[in-house]
């Protein structure tokens, strides 16, 4: 203990004696540890922390697997399948169905759309949530014609009701219908579907006796039976799927069931990107460690006489190593403290730029796990950059070092290690740079991608008249007519349109049959198309070109559809699609194809165009429609005018989710943007650290080689030749690092495949460009030491003997 204290005191004194070295070392470490702390904080909150539910590891989402029918693996559930699943008590303790709900709360200054969920009464029990006031739903709430009840979230309770504790029992009007508030949820409750903003819940009333099996409308969350491992549960679900396929072949043919851990669902596709960032900051820290190790080697070299004296005085080598390690760990601790402070700031910055779609952002914060991580990283860092130089320094030949203290025996023996460290940090920097380059290119290509529609200068807003008053399709259509007429007459509006579902705004698909072709033997075999109800002006407003035929007339009366190119190609290859007729169900009329419109990437640039059909909204009206306004200037300026126009038609119908189409497109690529920006930032940090490392080593090399340079000049070397010697030496090391880094980049980039778009993992252009950048930076880093070398006065250098 005594000697440890002595080591520590001595280490402090050494660091204080060399403030320049100490500041550079602590800053380098703080950057490395800070970056790691910040990214780990995010990873911890998003990936590692358990979800805020009771025993969250047993919660699963239950999906219908439609892959065998050419559909997705995570299709929603039909009410019939949900009912069958929820009865499977050998598999689930409980299962709850969830449907979307966005009621309009009236009674305040203006109607407010509230994001929420409709859920079966099991929902809160499945999640293990207890309300802070009142109760959760009961079985009797789910019965058709039961009294309308609702549960509100903490945010809504405090915002609209001032946290009134007597709220339970009060009636509120939601989309024109009175609902009794029966409970208030705790502040940190996180809904399953309306994950970021959900604030209100009401019972989902499913007919459990003769449930519908054709409509696929609900998501299902379930709690696995206690003690049942997920793989066994999945096997049991497969057996159940076969049973239901046999019982309901018309709906369940080729439909499997998939159990997905809720945590995986919540984390979604952000995991690979976050893990890539964690890898990136680990690389940054390794580069920082390499720099530090090099600094310590250089210092060890200049301290060789001191160490030799210690050894000559009887110190064991282990004792000297311990002394040196104490210094490096002390440095690491100082860097770690700086890193955590930097990390706190960086976490705030990360949260502020995190994509809106990122899950669990509200849970990001420093906790004991993060501090433990930072402490561990600090300790490992101290050992990593300190151990090799300490061993190297303590290995010095005492006799030689004492005789040749000025130049130091460590100088020669540490040379290979120093050069090796530079090669390693260049290689790491190249891996980071090329990875960052790939992600940046991905983002730029996504941003520049042609989506098949023109999102510029377009304002959109959702209008959803309450079904209580607008209880028929005709009433909806009539209201939409008025909205459209008002909207297109607004000053500043160039074009206006209505559409049931916006691009990048969700799904709406249906089976269909082509006239003259045999009907599919079952639903499983029937072709599927996405469909949107639109105004005649939709294609023009969205900049979607009609390739053949025509668009809709303003009041097209004959049942008509426009299909996209993908649909025409897939179903009418080699035939004339125009004039052919489609039917969406036996109850509906045949719709004639009157036009073929260009494909639009409605799920974003990464996904291929879907099979799409467009129908005039007045021929198939549905609740809820989006208003699309194209303006000459800034479309956001139309916001209040649009609100007023709709309010003038019905003050109880708010315009929800008003935004620009550009913003929606921007949001769809927020995640790649986030990853690209951070990866680029870390790449630049790596580049700067590598440049500092190369500079430091080359400056040290020049100092060590002063005599040699003097000799070379005395033997006839010109300044240019000396300059080339030093720069060439630095570039040779860089080139070796680049070669190793290129191989590493190709290996590492494979892990990035799922994050890339429009660029391949081993993209030679990216690799070449980043390698050139690195070589240029290395050449620049060598420039000053090389210039210094050319100024070596051979007379002075040789006199030093």
């Amino acid at each position, binding site marked *: 203990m005594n000697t440890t204290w002595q080591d520590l005191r001595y280490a402090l004194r050494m660091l204080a004696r060399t403030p320049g070295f100490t500041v550079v070392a602590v800053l380098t470490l703080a950057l490395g540890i800070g970056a790691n702390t910040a990214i780990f904080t995010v990873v911890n909150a998003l990936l590692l922390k358990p979800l805020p539910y009771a025993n969250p590891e047993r919660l699963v989402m239950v999906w219908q697997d439609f892959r065998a029918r050419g559909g997705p693996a995570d299709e929603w559930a039909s009410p019939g399948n949900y009912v069958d699943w929820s009865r499977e008590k050998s598999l689930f303790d409980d299962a709850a169905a969830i449907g979307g709900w966005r009621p309009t709360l009236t009674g305040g200054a203006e109607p407010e759309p509230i994001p929420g969920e409709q859920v079966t009464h099991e929902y809160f029990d499945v999640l293990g949530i207890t309300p802070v006031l009142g109760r959760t739903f009961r079985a009797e709430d789910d019965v058709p014609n039961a009294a309308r009840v609702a549960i509100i979230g903490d945010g809504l309770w405090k915002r609209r009701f001032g946290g009134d504790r007597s709220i339970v029992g009060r009636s509120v009007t939601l989309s024109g219908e009175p609902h009794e508030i029966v409970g208030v949820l705790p502040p940190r409750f996180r809904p399953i579907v309306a994950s970021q903003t959900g604030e209100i819940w009401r019972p989902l009333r499913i007919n459990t006796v003769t449930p519908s099996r054709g409509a696929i409308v609900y998501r299902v969350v379930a709690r696995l039976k206690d003690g049942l491992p997920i793989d066994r549960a999945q096997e049991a679900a497969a057996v159940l799927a076969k049973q239901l396929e046999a019982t309901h072949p018309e709906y369940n043919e080729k439909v499997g069931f998939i159990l997905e851990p809720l945590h995986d669902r919540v984390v979604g596709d952000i995991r690979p990107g976050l893990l890539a960032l964690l890898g990136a900051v680990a690389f940054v820290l390794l580069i920082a460690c390499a720099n530090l190790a090099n600094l310590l080697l250089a210092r060890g070299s200049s301290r060789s006489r001191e160490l030799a004296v210690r050894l000559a005085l009887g110190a064991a080598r282990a004792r000297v190593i311990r002394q040196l390690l104490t210094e490096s760990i002390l440095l690491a601790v100082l860097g770690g403290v700086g890193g955590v402070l930097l990390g706190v700031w960086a976490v705030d910055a990360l949260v502020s730029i995190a994509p809106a779609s990122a899950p669990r952002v509200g849970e990001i914060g420093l906790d004991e796990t993060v501090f433990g991580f930072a402490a561990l990283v600090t300790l490992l860092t101290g050992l990593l950059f300190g151990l090799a130089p300490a061993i190297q320094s303590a290995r010095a030949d005492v006799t030689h070092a004492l005789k040749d203290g000025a130049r130091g025996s460590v100088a*020669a023996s540490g040379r290979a290690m120093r050069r090796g460290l530079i090669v390693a940090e260049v290689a790491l920097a190249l891996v980071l740079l090329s990875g960052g380059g790939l992600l940046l290119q991905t983002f730029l290509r996504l941003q520049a991608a042609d989506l098949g529609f023109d999102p510029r200068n377009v304002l959109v807003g959702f209008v959803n008249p309450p079904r209580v008053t607008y209880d028929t399709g005709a009433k909806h259509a009539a209201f939409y007519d008025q909205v459209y007429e008002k909207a297109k007459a607004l000053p500043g509006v160039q074009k206006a349109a209505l559409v049931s579902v916006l691009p990048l705004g969700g799904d709406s698909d249906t089976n269909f049959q082509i006239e003259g072709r045999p009907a599919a033997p079952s639903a499983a075999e029937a072709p599927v198309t996405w469909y949107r109800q639109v105004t005649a002006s939709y294609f023009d407003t969205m900049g979607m070109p009609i390739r053949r035929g025509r668009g809709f007339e303003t009041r097209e009366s004959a049942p008509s559809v426009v299909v996209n190119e993908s649909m025409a190609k897939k179903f009418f290859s080699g035939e004339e699609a125009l004039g052919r007729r489609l039917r969406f169900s036996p109850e509906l009329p045949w719709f004639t194809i009157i036009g073929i419109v260009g494909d639009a990437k409605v799920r974003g640039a990464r996904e291929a165009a879907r099979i799409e059909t467009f129908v005039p909204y007045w021929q198939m009206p549905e609740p809820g429609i989006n208003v699309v306004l194209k303006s000459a200037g800034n479309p956001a300026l139309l916001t209040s005018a649009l609100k007023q126009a709709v309010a003038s038609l019905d003050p109880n119908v708010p315009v929800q989710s008003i935004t620009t189409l550009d913003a929606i497109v921007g949001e769809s690529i927020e995640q790649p943007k986030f990853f690209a920006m951070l990866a680029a930032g870390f790449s630049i940090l790596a580049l700067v650290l590598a440049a500092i490392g190369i500079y430091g080593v080359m400056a040290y090399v020049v100092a060590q080689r002063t*005599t*040699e340079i*003097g*000799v*070379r*000049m*005395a*033997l*006839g*070397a*010109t300044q240019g*030749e000396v300059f080339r010697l030093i720069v060439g030496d630095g570039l040779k090391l860089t080139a070796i690092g680049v070669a190793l880094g290129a191989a590493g980049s190709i290996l590492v980039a494979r892990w990035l495949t799922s994050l890339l778009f429009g660029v391949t993992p081993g993209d030679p252009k990216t690799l070449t460009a980043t390698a050139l950048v690195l070589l240029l930076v290395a050449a620049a880093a060598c420039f000053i030491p090389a210039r210094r070398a050319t100024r070596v*006065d*051979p*007379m002075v250098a*040789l*006199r030093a*003997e």
Partner: protein
Amino acid sequence: MSFFKSSQPVRQPDVLTSEAAVAPHALIAFRNIEKSYAHGTSRTYVLRRINVDIKDGEFVSIMGPSGAGKSTLLHIIGMHDSAWTGEYYFLDQPVHKLAAKDRARLHKQHIGFVFQSYHLLDHLTVYENLDIPLSYRDIKKGERESLVGDILDKFSIVGKKDLYPNQLSGGQQQLVAVARAVISSPKVILADEPTGNLHSSQGREIMELFKKLNESGTTIIQVTHSEANAAYGSRVINLRDGWIVDE
């Protein structure tokens, strides 16, 4: 020869700045060469009014106590040092008027160096050390190989060509250093205490080598403290406090 006869210069130059005063056949001619360092308002002189001619084929020893300016003089002759005043003619070319590039060319073409600490490059083999001066003279690889082969043979060090300096004795290292100095066939070899780090027998071998080189036409200028080494030469220049005190 008397080093400590007087603290004052015994001979003042009578020719100061005339280019016409350069002696015929002088390989090296110094006229009124001075080197000094400024310290605030005062100035410390390292060399004062040096006037000396060295003819082609001479073997000159520069002697004097430590700090007399011997090595400085040698480095000025070797054109490493350009911060001096006066006139310096090398093969009738006015070095004092030459641009740095031309000086470097002149130095490269005609001057070889031998150092007290040998200064072989540690990470290069004997062969590579010998190749270094040639590589700075734009000589093609084939010719360089032939020249290095010749010199290895001439100095009987063929068997050591792949060894590194730390695998050689001091004498052997200095032998290689001399070989390195002569490989580019300089007109003059400048040697700064060439035997200072050697045993006497090794020192004698090196001095014999210089003598042979001199006999074959190479001008040798050495800085030495040793009367015995100076005896190998034909002329001694004594320096004291920057002045030539005796010749």
